[in-house]
């Protein structure tokens, strides 16, 4: 299955589900169902976010997978691609690459998680692709599986395409 939005295209393997979204400017959580559910944040304008997982992604989740990682366990993998502002593109933290960087098992650790979860491991790579700055954030539900999961993550991220701004 393919999803495409905001200049990002991703092919999802069988058994995966995903979403490409962009939080509405001026809202914190993007919650729906009533004006009271939104919280205004002046000046905030976030970029698109791609979430892909081999498990059922919950609706209420943050950009870096909070809400989803709580449900992860053995065999689960979450791949997140977060775009940063144009002023970050090409900077030292976001080196220019020709494709989404590959991951290895050694890149994963519990310290790589946005929020430490027992038994999980995460990895982050920052890069600029086609003039757009991204962070690739990957979480493995069981840190004992980082080796094969890194391979799986590479198979998935290899299919990601980004168009120039």
């Amino acid at each position, binding site marked *: 299955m393919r*999803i495409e939005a905001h200049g990002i295209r991703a092919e999802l393997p069988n058994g995966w589900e995903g*979403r*490409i979204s*962009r939080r509405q400017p001026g809202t914190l959580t993007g919650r729906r169902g009533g004006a009271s559910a939104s919280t205004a944040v002046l000046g905030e304008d976030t970029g698109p976010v791609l979430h892909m997982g081999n498990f059922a992604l919950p*609706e209420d989740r943050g950009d870096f997978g909070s809400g989803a990682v709580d449900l992860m366990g053995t065999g689960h993998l979450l791949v997140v691609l977060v775009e940063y502002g144009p002023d970050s593109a090409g900077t030292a933290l976001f080196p220019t690459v020709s494709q989404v960087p590959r991951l290895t098992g050694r890149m994963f650790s519990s310290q790589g998680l946005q929020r430490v979860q027992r038994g999980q491991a995460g990895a982050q790579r920052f890069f600029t692709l086609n003039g757009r700055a991204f962070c690739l954030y990957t979480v493995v539900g069981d840190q004992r599986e980082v080796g094969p999961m890194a391979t799986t993550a590479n198979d998935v991220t290899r299919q990601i395409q980004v168009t120039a701004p």
Partner: protein
Amino acid sequence: MAAVVVILAVAVAVLTLLVLGLLRSHADILRRLHDLDGGLEEGATTRAAAATGGRSGARAAGPRTVSRDEVRTFPQVQAPPEREGFTDSRDLVGVGIDDDALTIRVTGVEHRTLVAFLSGSCLTCQRFWDAFQKPQKLGLPRDVRPVIVTKGPDQESPAAIARVAPAAVPVVMDTSAWEAYDIPGSPYFVLVDGKTGLVQGEGTGIDWDQVKGLLTQIQDDASYAEDLESRRVAKYKADDERERRVDEELLAAGIGPGDPSLYGDGPDDPRLAAHQHAHDHPHDHDEPDERTRA
């Protein structure tokens, strides 16, 4: 005298018209009562008679089978689809209401998915949009994941959907899913077993309580089937051993499953003789083992 005759003739004519009017009114009332009683129209009676081999054109007493085109539902409730069986399920892929693109797995997962096909314009759907605002109060089993599917942005207003969409239930705008699941209209609900990809049940109602009742019925049926399976009596050990020994002997004699000799009429069956010559194994044709006639 002539005037009296004329007056009488006029009176008779008027009375005749009145009687004809009354008879027509009476026939109309009888026909309407017949319709309300679920009676067959003349044409339908003819069709029914033809379907039953033309045994009789008269209506049989007692309950009868109602064909799909005779089903009447409330205006706000969708009639059942024309097909007889369930359709295949498939994963959902479409756009969301926040200018996003998303996919939802329905098959190849451990959980079941309740796919709710709703619209932003149908009045009955509003009750379900309201119900989904608090998914924890839906009373769904823990292994059931609710997902709402509307038609695509070309047929449904994303703004209208955004006003009613719940926060905690995914909403996919995907017209092709309506076609894939053969949805007759909204609201409509399909329960898919993620492990097998099979549709466990489908239906609709005028409010969530009715749909929940359908789901409960499905759950009860599944539990009943599991209960029957658990109560199945195990085969006796002696029978099992005998069947194994027979199978081994037959296989050793070159007689496998589906062998014609297993279905023959006895030693005189020409098929048995033909099969015998096809093998070099010695079979006892004079005293065929009764086990080979199984």
